[in-house]
Structure formats: structure tokens, C-alpha cells
């Protein structure tokens, strides 16, 4: 752990990404206690207020208000909760399913492998957004469905990379040794393979997190994500874009929030991949 942080502090980009990520998670977790206005209640008198630092903190709208007078700062902060919950759950669900199937395909080989990899190929041939739209349109836009759809677009990334790792792992002597003592396939996959693919799975997870945040925003932009009045970044973009010429703040700040979060995740993810890559490690 200490080594992790001393390595991290040596990479400007990695550290910046890490700080952005921590900030994002902290805001999401602490949102109810930050003394912000109710993100769902507006006042018509305060419609389209430009960002202002006048007055005392709770009353002012530092990032302005939207077309029904809701505080944009509050909506962004509360929206990060939705984003974190949806993206986090999707990354975890996609990661578990994808890692498991990747291990199964790589270790079992044969027909299992061929079927799973054909599935991956087929899914790769379908544009992800189209797949997501289809499923959400068919099942209805609930939080669970959005999570499910995002996980569905995600498992293949894990499965492919993990499978490749497993193909080389299973030739390693310690796996042969496990076979020699009569260990079952399940035992070998769970006790010998899984712990050795956790690192690549974690790296895929950070890269997927960034992609899923963008996709989640896109889904809510299209009205298929979290339903109003709950705040979500994509939705704020969609609602605000009509007023872009008169109220620039209504799209700019949600857009910035998405951009900074994704940037943070990507910077940190890139660093993490290098950190775990033995080749770049020994070069340092």
C-alpha cells in the first residue's frame, strides 16, 4: 500500500486522476450533508439564474439554476450519486460475469470456449449503443435495467482479456501441479487462476468505468436512463441544450462534470495498467 502511493505520487497524471476520482466519490457519498439545496425542487422566481457568488453560501447559486429554478451545483453533486451507483454496479456486475466466463472459456477450452467466443464476436458486431437502446426500450427505463444493459455491454471486454491471460496461465507449472494432485477444474479455476487474473480484471474495470459513465450519460441524455425528477448528468445536458444560447451554464457545468470524472478515471486507469505491468515496472 505504501509502495502504491509512493509510486502514484511520482506520476503527475496518475495522481491527478486519482484525486479527481476521490473527489468524485467523496462528493457523491457526502452529498446529503453538504448543505446544498434540494436538487429536485425549483423556484420559478429563480429560473435561469446565472452563476452568482453574491449573498451567503446556501442561498446563492454558484453554478446558476436551470429552466425550473433548480440549483445546478446541487443537481450535479446529487447526480454524481446516481452516476456512481449505476456505473459502479454495472462495472461490478459486468466484471464478475465477464471474469468468470473468461476464465471458463480459457480453462475449459473446446466447445465451451468456442461458444463463448462466438457470443463475444456477435456482440462486438452489434453497436453497443444500439444494443442498449433496444434493451432499455424493450424493458423500460428503470435503474436496474440501465445497470443490466451497461453490464451487458461490458462483460465481453473482461471475458476477452481474461481468457487470453488464462490461456497462458493454464500452461504454467503450478496449474499442472494442481492437476497432478487431482484438483478439480473448479478448484483450479477458483484457487489458482482467479487470484492470478484479478490484476488485469481490475485494470479493465477502471477503463470500463470511464466508458460506462459516458454511456450512462448518453442513455439518460436520450431519456432512457434515470427518470426525472432525479438528477442525472446526461439528463441535465439534454434539458439544458435547448437554452444553450441564453443560459450557457445549464449545459456547460454538467458537461464539465462528465468530462472531469471520465478524465480522472482514465488517467488513473492508465497509470494503474502501467503500475501492474511487470514490463514497465522493471523498466522503472
Amino acid at each position, binding site marked *: 500500500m505504501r509502495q502504491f502511493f509512493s509510486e502514484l505520487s511520482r506520476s503527475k497524471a496518475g495522481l491527478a486522476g486519482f484525486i479527481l476520482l476521490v473527489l468524485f466519490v467523496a462528493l457523491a457519498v457526502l452529498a446529503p450533508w453538504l448543505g446544498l439545496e434540494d436538487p429536485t425542487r425549483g423556484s420559478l422566481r429563480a429560473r435561469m439564474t446565472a452563476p452568482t457568488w453574491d449573498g451567503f453560501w446556501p442561498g446563492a447559486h454558484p453554478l446558476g439554476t436551470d429552466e425550473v429554478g433548480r440549483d445546478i451545483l446541487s443537481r450535479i453533486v446529487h447526480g454524481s450519486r446516481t452516476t456512481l451507483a449505476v456505473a459502479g454496479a454495472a462495472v461490478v456486475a459486468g466484471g464478475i460475469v465477464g471474469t468468470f466466463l473468461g476464465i471458463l472459456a480459457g480453462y475449459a477450452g473446446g466447445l465451451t470456449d468456442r461458444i463463448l467466443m462466438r457470443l463475444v464476436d456477435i456482440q462486438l458486431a452489434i453497436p453497443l449503443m444500439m444494443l442498449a437502446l433496444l434493451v432499455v426500450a424493450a424493458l423500460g427505463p428503470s435503474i436496474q435495467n440501465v445497470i443490466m444493459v451497461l453490464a451487458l455491454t461490458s462483460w465481453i471486454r473482461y471475458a476477452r482479456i481474461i481468457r487470453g491471460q488464462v490461456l497462458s496461465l493454464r500452461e504454467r507449472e503450478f496449474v499442472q501441479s494442481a492437476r497432478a494432485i487431482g484438483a*478439480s477444474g473448479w478448484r483450479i479455476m477458483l484457487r489458482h487462476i482467479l487470484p492470478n487474473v484479478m490484476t488485469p480484471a481490475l485494470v479493465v474495470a477502471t477503463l470500463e468505468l470511464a466508458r460506462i459513465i459516458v454511456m450512462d450519460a448518453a442513455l439518460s441524455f436520450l431519456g432512457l436512463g434515470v427518470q426525472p425528477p432525479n438528477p442525472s448528468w446526461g439528463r441535465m445536458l439534454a434539458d439544458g441544450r435547448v437554452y444553450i444560447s441564453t443560459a450557457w451554464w445549464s449545459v456547460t457545468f454538467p458537461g464539465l462534470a462528465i468530462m472531469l470524472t471520465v478524465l480522472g478515471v482514465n488517467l488513473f486507469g492508465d497509470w494503474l495498467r502501467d503500475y501492474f505491468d511487470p514490463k514497465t515496472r522493471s523498466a522503472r
Partner: protein
Amino acid sequence: MAEPLLEVRNLIRTYGGNRSLLGGARPVLHAVNDISFHVAAGETLGLVGESGSGKSTAGRVTLQLEPADGGSVRFAGQEITGLSPRQLKPVRRQMQMIFQDPYAALNPRMRVGSFVAEPLVVHGEDAHKDRIADLFRIVGLDPAFMTRYPHEFSGGQRQRICIARAIALKPSFIVADEPITALDVSIQAQIVNLFQDLQDQLGLAYLFIAHDLSMVRYLCQRVAVMLRGRIVETASVEQIFSNPQHPYTRSLLDAIPVPDPDRPRRKRLAFDVASNIPPREAVMAEIAPGHFVLQP
């Protein structure tokens, strides 16, 4: 004569050959090509040949870690080729393998104590800490190391850990695949001694794989010399060292480093493997009791 513990007959293992998607079969490689040998209980058979001659493959197929493409393997009177994993499980208690590269042979994410205990757990035996500690002591390791991870150990220590795991179920036969090749010369003798002590204590039989003959003289009773997937000569250690018949065996003998620097080294016989691939129709002939040579 009683049946030996292990009897391998006409074993074949090929790689490649199955059609790739874009037509055209890949050429078939006969990694192990019709070899036969036996190992008696408590005996050590050396399997010697240069790198790539098929020794490791022979070891793996003997232990049914990969399927044979032909031939038979009888262990303790039972034919074990073609058995299902479930049928093999009780046989696996009796035979184990130790690998060449002790760095790849340990799971980097598993504590070495759990690693040594795993065979006991798999076979539903008592894997209590005391029993693992005993195994650590037997192979000359401090039982306090049990909770550590592999990266904290040297090559020699890792090989001891592998040995502890291999003997946990008290097997009667171990394939040791070049177990000292990757170790420092100063450590090699210690590990060879450990192999010998364990053999005396536990009555183990070994198939000891090596790429040269230097350690074989101390450890083995009989030797099989392998060349390009075939066994070209089998004999007792005395016969091999005093009366080598096959030119390849002679070249291996000449390659042994001479310990005494004053003694002039015999001129090394050049042996060109590429132009000495054993012909397909060659057969073994017994030129003296127990001494077989592949006749061209």
C-alpha cells in the same frame, strides 16, 4: 519376475496436425515417439537427453497430465491411460511431479503453507497445521515460513516447497523434471541429497529427468537416453558409463565436466543430432542383460 511399479509401453504423444481454419494441416510433431521403459518400486530411472528431445512430454504423459496418442501406461498393475478424471484421482495420490522451473511451479498468489496443504485438502485428508509443519521440516524448511508468499523465497527454497507438496500424500512414484537445472550449482547438491534422503525414508521411486549425465551417476540405478522423441539406449548406470553403445550416449558422456582439472579432458565427440534422427524402422536390441540399444 514381479510386475514393476510403472510400466510404459510404446508411448506416443504428437503435437499439431489438427487442421487449422484456413485449410492445410500443420505438420505433426512426434514429441514422444514409441518409447517404452519401466520403473521398479524404490528405484530411480534417469531419463536423459538434450533439450527438446521430449523428456518433459514423456513425464507429463506418463502421469496422465495430458493424453497419450498411443501406447500404454500401467501403474501398480492398473492401466491408467484413458481413465476419467474421477477414476484417476485415487491414482494421483500415488504419483507426483516436480517441475524444472521453481519460479513457475508455485502459485504467486497462494501462501506456501496452503500450497503444500492443498493435496491433503483435495483428497479429504487432515491438513492440520502440525502436519504441514512436519512436511516443512522434512524438506529442511522452517515451518514459520508457512504464511509467506512465494516471492520471498530463493530458487532452492521454492524447490523444497514443491517437494513438500509432492510428498504430502506419501506417493510411491515421483517424476522429477530437471529439478536442479534452474538452481545455483551450490544448491544443486543439497537438493539431490534431499531426493536421496526422501527415497530412503519413504521408499520412493523416481523418474529423474536430466539433460546431461553428471548427476545421474549418483542418483540413478538405470538410465534411458532419449533423442528426438525416441529412447536410443537403456541400461544400468554401470553399463552406460562403462560400455556406452549408441553414439549419442557417448557424446553425452564426453560432455560431462571433468572435476579434476589436471586430468586432460577427453576430446569431445561431435554428435550432430540433425543428421542422426533415428530412422522410423529402428528397433531396440538387447546386447547384454538389461542393456538395450536402438539399432539403425
